[in-house]
């Protein structure tokens, strides 16, 4: 039996096909968000609005990390920042830019509050490295 024929036959075995589909589909399925998307949901769901999605990729094209993480005081840990709409309208955190001058103002709720209702807070997009701490 030639090499090609043998491995094609091996791939037609139902058990092998199942295994292959499992390998192909399962790891990719839950992580469809863009790398480093952050979901903010400390208050959103309980206040009856969609949770917020903060896309790192969009912002780092336009701002260096230091602007938000040094000047604006965002702690570099998803969940460590308790951002309220009150503070944003006072020009703190997101409100330093989202004021209608640099970026869209707070009146455009749906542009930030854009996640599916009930989405859990946290950083998304494959940050789970499956290392010892996450086994």
């Amino acid at each position, binding site marked *: 039996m030639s090499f090609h024929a043998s491995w094609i036959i091996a791939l037609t075995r139902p058990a092998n096909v199942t295994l292959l589909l499992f390998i192909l589909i399962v790891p990719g399925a839950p992580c469809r968000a863009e790398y480093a998307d952050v979901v903010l949901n400390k208050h959103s769901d309980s206040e009856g609005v*969609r949770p917020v999605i903060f896309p790192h990729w969009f912002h780092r094209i336009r701002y260096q990390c230091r602007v938000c993480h*040094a000047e604006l005081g965002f702690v570099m840990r998803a969940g460590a920042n308790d951002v309220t709409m009150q503070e944003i309208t006072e020009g703190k955190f997101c409100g330093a830019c989202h004021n209608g001058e640099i970026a869209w103002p707070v009146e455009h709720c749906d542009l930030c509050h854009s996640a599916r209702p009930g989405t859990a807070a946290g950083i998304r997009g494959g940050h789970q490295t499956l290392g010892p701490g996450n086994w």
Partner: protein
Amino acid sequence: MSVNRIRHMGTSRVYRCLVAVVFLVMAAAAVAGEWRPLKNDSLHDPENPALQYLQNPGDALGRLPGDGAGNKVDWIRALENGYIRPRSELKKDTPVRTLDTDILLNKTGSIPRVRFPHKVHTQWLDCDNCHEQIFKSKAGATPITMGKILEGEYCGVCHGAVAFPLTECNRCHSVPWDSQETPVAEKR
């Protein structure tokens, strides 16, 4: 695959079979790794009428120098070659501090040592983002371990969350033990 069949095929054929399967998996992963439009990223609410106004990742990231991991963008090249010009401060009087010193991390066992380049890090970050809370300024004074990094501490605060992920071993572990490089080194 039955044991008999494996025996019949011989080791090299089983090996070639495995290589073929791994190749298929990698090819499929590469295709699946393209940027997804927001409407079917399983995160954004497709019912949200404002979704049409948001930029899709592929529209922006597809124009930047490519990479195999994370956002699939080589952010360093994007910055250094002028593809992007991210603003460095909001207020005019905010100091923008940079440093061009490489640190050599020696406690890596038998695998290549780590070169930490301050330059590319301070092109994005301020000194205070890492010092003194995550890392002590004194070289060698911080008990960094790979386990802690995998748990999201030290380098893992960013690498694996927003900067290139921890599957990219060689990008950090890049200095072989027989190399004569002499950046600022930790004491061994």
